[in-house]
């Protein structure tokens, strides 16, 4: 059986599932049905086993050095800016952005670039407004920063709940996407795929903590960047290293496809050229801005990304991490752009990757996978499949670690034990939480197998942008912010995002089939982010409690610490 044949099945589904991890309501319709099991792909499995062997060996080495809570949460704070930047990129570049965005470009051309820019612009903002202040005030979780001068229980509880919500929705989408993708690429049954992802992620986090998770992310980032660079390079080499040639040939292919479709000459030329311009992705300005806000500000509120700031020794390295992360992620999106157009030219016409009806075998989202085969044959196809698996593992490990820290550090040690828990106790609780989360992730992955979970990533971004982001910004930059304002205002932001997302077309109409959606726009952020800010401001303004006076009085000293790093938790590498 040829590799192409292996990939031919379950088109719509699989493609959709890859996209499930994209925060794009437009893609929500895709995640329906059931992927068929594929014949076992031994090349891909061999490469994946090599990756797992290497990462487990690293985990074993890391486990020997994971003795305290600080080791577990932040790898002792001894990660360099360069390493952390790669790990952040590894946390952020999902299999979905690789396969989903290149597929989007394969289908619609230019529109894919709009997604890419949206995913990237949150990083500079995270740097300009938060990076050094986060590092200077925080220790293990972003709640350390958000609750710095406030009464601990209310603000910590808010932050922990918000973290668990954001992580859960993100995790479900990743687990379901992982199961479907692996079923398709490796030919493993869905349940086996989900259990493998859950078990490996638990091993990394449980024994290796942040040190192992960081290295898994770094290795994955290097493999993904290397694989994508090779693909883009091969595409460019065939085009004589001219983007104009690449685009011209892509337009030619699309025109020919339109002609074959029965379009007239003028219309076919029109449809060919349409891939060089924005298409149907952005419809109304309100949805456009809302989508932009959710991606931009949500990035600066994702708990597993914020947590990475505490793994570096100081503010200088924290800034460098963001520069490296932005550079790698931006570079990756440029590669995806070339890969998408390359797929139009190399996969869209010849080699039998298209079926008789003129559509891509295995579904539109297989574009990058087919391109891997067209460029490097069976071995490279196996490599790219293994990288996609590794990518999912790295993302779920980071998510689980941040949720485990929210439970053990914020809820257990600070709220429940009032800060009196020993490092060993805290470590024990984080490991128990990791076990519970790993089991839960597998369970949810199995439960949601046949559900449409595409909206869950967009929900996670909207929640992070509407709850975590306003609370962090106002607690860092506004002296008038109080405990009540942060805890309740943040909760109102979260709830607004949650309810509006449920009422939006992607969930109300597509997922639950309840008819026309009460909330017409594709993203809640344009309403829920201002709602979060406004609620924090109003509640703080009218807060006359004795605690409010303490909160406000604490601001000047917090400000100096945030700006100078005085009293910051130092690296404690052994």
């Amino acid at each position, binding site marked *: 059986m040829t590799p192409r044949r292996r990939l031919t099945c379950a088109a719509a589904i699989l493609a959709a599932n890859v996209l499930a991890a994209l925060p794009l309501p437009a893609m929500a319709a895709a995640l329906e049905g059931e992927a068929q099991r594929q014949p076992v792909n031994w090349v891909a499995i061999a490469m994946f086993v090599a990756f797992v062997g290497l990462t487990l060996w690293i985990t074993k080495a890391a486990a020997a050095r994971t003795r305290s809570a600080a080791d577990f949460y932040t790898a002792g704070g001894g990660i360099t800016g360069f390493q952390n930047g790669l790990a952040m990129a590894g946390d952020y570049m999902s299999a979905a952005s690789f396969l989903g965005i290149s597929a989007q470009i394969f289908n619609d051309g*230019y529109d894919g*670039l*709009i997604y*890419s*820019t*949206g995913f*990237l*612009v949150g*990083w*500079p*903002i995270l*740097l*300009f*407004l938060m990076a*050094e202040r986060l590092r200077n005030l925080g220790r293990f979780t972003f709640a350390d920063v958000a609750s710095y001068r406030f009464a601990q229980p209310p603000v910590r509880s808010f932050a922990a709940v918000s973290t668990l919500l954001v992580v859960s929705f993100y995790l479900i989408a990743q687990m379901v996407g992982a199961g479907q993708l692996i079923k398709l690429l490796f030919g493993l049954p869905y349940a086996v795929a989900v259990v493998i992802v859950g078990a490996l992620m638990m091993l990394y986090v449980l024994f290796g903590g942040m040190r192992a998770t960081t290295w898994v992310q770094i290795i994955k980032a290097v493999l993904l960047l290397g694989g994508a660079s090779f693909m883009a390079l091969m595409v460019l080499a065939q085009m004589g290293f001219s*983007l*104009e040639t690449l*685009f*011209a040939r892509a*337009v030619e292919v699309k025109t020919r496809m339109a002609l074959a479709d029965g379009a007239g000459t003028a219309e076919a030329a029109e449809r060919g*050229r*349409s891939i*060089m*311009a*924005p*298409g149907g992705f*952005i*419809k*109304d*300005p309100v949805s*456009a*801005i809302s*989508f*932009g806000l959710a991606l*931009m500000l949500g990035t600066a509120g994702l708990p597993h990304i914020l947590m990475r700031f505490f793994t570096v020794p100081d*503010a*200088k390295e924290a*800034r*460098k991490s*963001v*520069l490296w992360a*932005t*550079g790698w992620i*931006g570079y990756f*999106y*440029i590669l995806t*752009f070339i890969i998408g157009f390359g797929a139009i030219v190399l996969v869209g016409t010849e080699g039998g990757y298209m079926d008789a009806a003129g559509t891509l075998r295995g579904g539109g989202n297989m574009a990058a996978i087919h391109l891997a085969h067209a460029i490097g044959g069976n071995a490279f196809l196996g490599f790219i499949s293994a990288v996609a698996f590794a990518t999912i593992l790295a993302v779920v490990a980071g998510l689980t670690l941040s949720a485990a820290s929210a439970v053990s550090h914020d809820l257990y040690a600070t709220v429940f034990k009032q800060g009196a828990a020993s490092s060993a106790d805290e470590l024990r609780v984080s490991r128990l939480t990791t076990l519970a989360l790993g089991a839960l992730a597998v369970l949810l992955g199995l439960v949601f197998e046949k559900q449409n979970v595409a909206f869950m990533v967009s929900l996670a971004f909207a929640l992070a942008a509407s709850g975590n982001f306003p609370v962090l910004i106002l607690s860092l930059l506004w002296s008038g912010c109080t405990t009540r304002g942060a805890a309740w205002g943040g909760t109102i932001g979260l709830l607004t995002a949650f309810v509006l997302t449920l009422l939006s077309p992607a969930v109300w109409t597509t997922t639950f089939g309840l008819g026309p959606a009460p909330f017409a726009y594709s993203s809640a952020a344009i309403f829920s982010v201002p709602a979060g800010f406004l609620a924090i401001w109003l509640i703080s303004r009218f807060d006359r409690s004795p605690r409010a006076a303490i909160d406000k009085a604490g601001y*000047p*000293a917090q*400000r*100096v*610490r945030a*700006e*100078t790093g*005085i*009293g910051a938790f130092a690296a404690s590498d052994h």
Partner: protein
Amino acid sequence: MPGVREEALIAAIAADPEYQALVRRRARLGWWLTVLVFCAFVGYLLLIAFDKALLGTPIGTGVTSIGIPIGLGLILLAIALTGIYVAQANRHYDARMAAILKDHGA
């Protein structure tokens, strides 16, 4: 718990005009760059929402549209502005901050 000595140090630094000027300058750079990235991205989205054809206009006689350099330019802009902030903060502001802290015996 921070000691009494550290609190006195923090109060002294907060009152130092040199510190205030430095923090103001760094914050101003951060906000200006934020506004720049924000406006560039939102402007890009609005351009797409209101005039899709404009971005599809070919450059010269080829097929490459002006939307390509604008979209890729936005990615490069994000990286470049990040680089500018990090260079400025890590090379200049940190050194001055260290000097101010040293003056106060921190």
